[in-house]
């Protein structure tokens, strides 16, 4: 039986590029304000089943991040349908998504509440998260005082420990020192195997992707140009890269 967790059906995303904020503001009230269209994602179709781990390759501007943002439900497609079943945990730009005025601990609760966890559930996870993040006493300091490495560690620790069903990793495994990177990789492998988590992985390092993933998708200029085994996808991507 097929158990599709993510389905993209002819999805297109067009960004409206106004030449100035003034024009954008006018565009709310007037119809005839001109803007350029940027097709970030162009008629993309794919399905991902539960437990699959998929790598997404593509150069900067190929539309990878837009796809991930649409899966997390942060941004919306201009046309087409997206179906997502399951709690999404996204490791997008790890250093952001915190309330800078709050301490690390308060941010754990905030994120937990927003994701719909109860106080009791968060309390159970709290120690694991703090331990994983290796922040020690800093956990009670405001996040604005953290270095980017500390923020990334906390972001990673929260996102992998809140029992996600779909995990989205965007270049996130390149944070911190080698020891922390190794720990992250182990944790990701562990939750993929143990909890049957679906993984979406974006990276430029094809070798890392091949470690985790079984399937690969290659994007170019907003279009899906290859979808298949991770090794083939990786080869395809490297060739494309070398040609240019």
């Amino acid at each position, binding site marked *: 039986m097929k158990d599709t967790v993510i389905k993209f059906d002819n999805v297109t995303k067009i*960004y*409206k590029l106004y030449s100035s*904020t*003034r024009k*954008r*503001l006018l565009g*709310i009230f007037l119809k005839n304000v001109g803007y350029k269209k940027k097709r970030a994602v162009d008629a993309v179709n794919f399905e991902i089943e539960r437990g699959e781990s998929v790598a997404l390759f593509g150069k900067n501007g190929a539309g990878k991040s837009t796809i991930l*943002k649409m899966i*997390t*439900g*942060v*941004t*919306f497609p201009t046309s087409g349908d997206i179906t997502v079943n399951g709690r*999404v945990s*996204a490791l*997008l*730009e790890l250093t*952001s*998504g*915190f*309330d800078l*005025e*709050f301490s690390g601990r*308060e941010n754990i*609760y*905030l*994120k937990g*509440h*927003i*994701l*719909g966890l109860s106080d009791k559930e968060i309390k159970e996870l709290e120690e694991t998260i703090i331990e994983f993040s290796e922040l020690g006493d800093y956990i009670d300091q*405001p996040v604005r005082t953290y270095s980017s490495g500390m923020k990334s560690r906390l972001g990673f620790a929260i996102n992998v420990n809140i029992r996600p069903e779909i995990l989205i990793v965007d270049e996130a495994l390149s944070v911190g020192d080698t020891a922390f990177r190794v720990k992250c990789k182990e944790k990701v492998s562990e939750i993929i195997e143990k909890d049957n988590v679906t993984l979406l992985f974006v990276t430029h390092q094809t070798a890392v992707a091949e470690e985790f993933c079984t399937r690969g998708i290659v994007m170019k200029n907003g279009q899906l140009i290859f979808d298949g085994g991770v090794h083939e996808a990786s080869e395809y991507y490297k060739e494309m890269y070398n040609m240019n």
Partner: protein
Amino acid sequence: MKSYFDIIALNIREHKDNIHQVMKLSVADLKKTYNGSALGWAWAVIKPVFTLFVYWFAISIGLRSGGDVGGYPFILWLVSGMVSWFFMGDAITGGTNCIRRYSYLVTKMKYPVMTIPTFTSLALLIVHLILVAVVILIFWIMGYPPTIYLVQLPFYMLLMFLFFNSWSLFAGLISAIGKDFSNLVKSFNIAVFWLSGILWNVENVADNKIVHTILMLNPVTFICYGYRNCFINKVWFFEEPEKLICFVCWYLVMGFLSLWAYKKLRKEIPDVL
């Protein structure tokens, strides 16, 4: 595109499903406002008391005006209306910035955007409740114990909350697109303050029918006078139904504008912030 009824239904559902988060976030919003200062929470009271003192000084001592109103000392008349303005003034400017202030809830995670103005307004309401308690206490200390008319105070609070909640959604969405709008609101805020009979009694211009009527149509005046009706004038809200109806009309307009803004901008906001 969804119809307005769908958006209303969605609005109710988002609030129902997230009531727990909304409560937590409103408390968090207060912490965010008052954290990082040594006196912390005390500022919630110090700031308004100071403002009140300055206005009282300017009018009573400086302008040698401000005699008793309806048998109450001017300072009591002033504070009873002013307390509502402390909420409304903050809601007008704060509401305009609410979505920018919480941009990470829009761009970094999936969060019901319509509840953002709700929890920021709720945070203001918590401070407001404290201030109202202080005002009741001041009246009492000065020899005016609470009367039965105070029971309609929660009603006016509810109207005020609902109106400015709609305003915050509308203004927050527009100013997320361009900061110009929040600058516009800041200038406009001063005009609203001086034209709403918070510092001076609108009844003073009662002989000029047109000006008086226009001033009375203002929803901010309605709330401010509602508060004074409870504390000073001893008037029930149902004794002046035409004013209430006028306010409800304003609320419907504001509600429509907020839904229009949501419908128009919800999908664009994450790409812009």
